[in-house]
């Protein structure tokens, strides 16, 4: 199984040096060969329909939690997470 390691790095928001990149490419290709049997299985039809579905969710209601979600933020200001300027 050939993979596009650069594409996966970008999807994963990760970066590697060249040596690590090679190692990861090799590892991932081995793992994908290992799980490859999945792609070859011929499964009965009735199991296909419901497999990927969104389970019933409760009604969405706004609520105030009893804890401060910002308590572990590396940088914050005025009750918000602080990050560098995103939009010019």
């Amino acid at each position: 199984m050939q993979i596009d390691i650069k594409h996966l790095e970008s999807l994963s928001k990760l970066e590697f040096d060249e040596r690590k990149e090679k190692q990861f490419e090799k590892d991932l290709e081995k793992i994908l060969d290992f799980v490859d049997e999945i792609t070859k299985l011929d499964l009965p039809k009735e199991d296909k329909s419901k497999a990927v579905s969104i389970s019933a969710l409760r009604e969405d209601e706004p609520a105030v939690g009893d804890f401060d979600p910002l308590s572990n933020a590396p940088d914050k200001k005025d009750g918000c997470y602080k990050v560098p300027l995103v939009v010019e």
Partner: protein
Amino acid sequence: MDFLKMSIKQISDGVKKQDFSAEEVVKFFIDRIEKYKEYNAIIEVFDDAEQKAKAIDEKVKSGEKLGEMAGVPVILKDNILYLGHKMSVASAFMKDYVAPYSATIVKKLEKAGAVIIARANMDEFAMGGSTENSVYGVTLNSKDKTRVAGGSSGGSATAVALGLAPVAIGTDTGGSIRQPSSFNGTVGIKPTYGTVSRYGIVAFASSTDQASPITRTIEDNELVLKIMAGKDQFDQTSIENDFGVAKKTYTIGLCKELMDKIQKLEQYPLFEKKIKDFEKAGFIIKQVSVPHIASSLACYYVLTPAEATSNLARFDGVKYTTRAKDAKTIDEILIKSRSQGFGDEVKRRIMLGNFVLSSGYFDAYYKKAKELQQLLKKEFAKAFEKCDVIITPTTPDVAFKIGEKSKDPISMYLEDLFTVPASISGIPAISVPYAEKQGLPLSMQIMGKEKSESVLYDIAKCIMEEK
């Protein structure tokens, strides 16, 4: 007083009757943690543990009614939130994180009178089978210091085997309680999916994650799991589970599709002897079929990385404690914080998850694995029409040597061969020691139908009593 010889019930009753104090109990176990430091099972002893024990003693003196774990020390795996205390998921990324609230299970344990005394080492983000992937270093096996503790709840299992607490809480996504329990000779259960609330536990693969107790005895295990169980308004997948009803005798299933693999194992003569013992004890042994069980491992290593990749997207250098120092733009914050913060195994699974979810591969991998998961659930349900439980070894062999498998991810993944089917099918499975090989414990795994934990505990008792 030797609290090591006491069951959880005996400790709790003793504290309530004031035969001894919760403070004495907690001090006894904290001293043991200090004594067995070299095993690296414990990351941190909480400095308010003795204070909390004293508070229990005060309640006893004031006549307040206490629960079934009065003054019983509990160790938490380092992925469970305990208000005001550090929790790091054994990751450099989260080293300074302080829990802003307690997990539902922690609240339940405390309500029962338990005293949380420490947090235990684990594989980073619960990904691994050896507790070698921890920023705090490797945990040693309780029976042989040159071998791994198993993982990912390796710290919890080693801690219980060494008697550092009567119970440690672990989490199990594909075997992370059962495999380290097997390697250390402790009792570990992965309950029916949904039995235990996941609220306040760091998510790895939400559709299979379950927390549960690791103990020395079945009785202790059942007592603690019952306290932890129950529907929770903060976990939409949680359920009420009555654990079912134990019977007088059982039909034990051997899975046809796994038998050739089991027969090739070195431990097979011991396993076979145990099955014969069951027959002698009047149990019926039957071959049953779960046709696609052998594909469980591949299914698991598609589904869980996919879920992990979504769950770990929240670690972005913005919300949780660590941000790369050299990052200037928002994208750099994301990429550099994650690249510096996560260890290799976590990165491997994130990349793998992104692969199976990515355009062009989603249908062939992720969707197919979800279909297989549905099919496996049905196949297990059908098999359980013919038997009460299905038995396998928990692991292919005894604990392996430190470093033996850390270079080769696949050889590590193969450790999960017998444990992942129950995980992806949502059914309960318990690991219980049944024999020894060169002084190292071997365990049996008993899988049952949904909500049949009482049956698993009952059969597990037979195994442990005969041992």
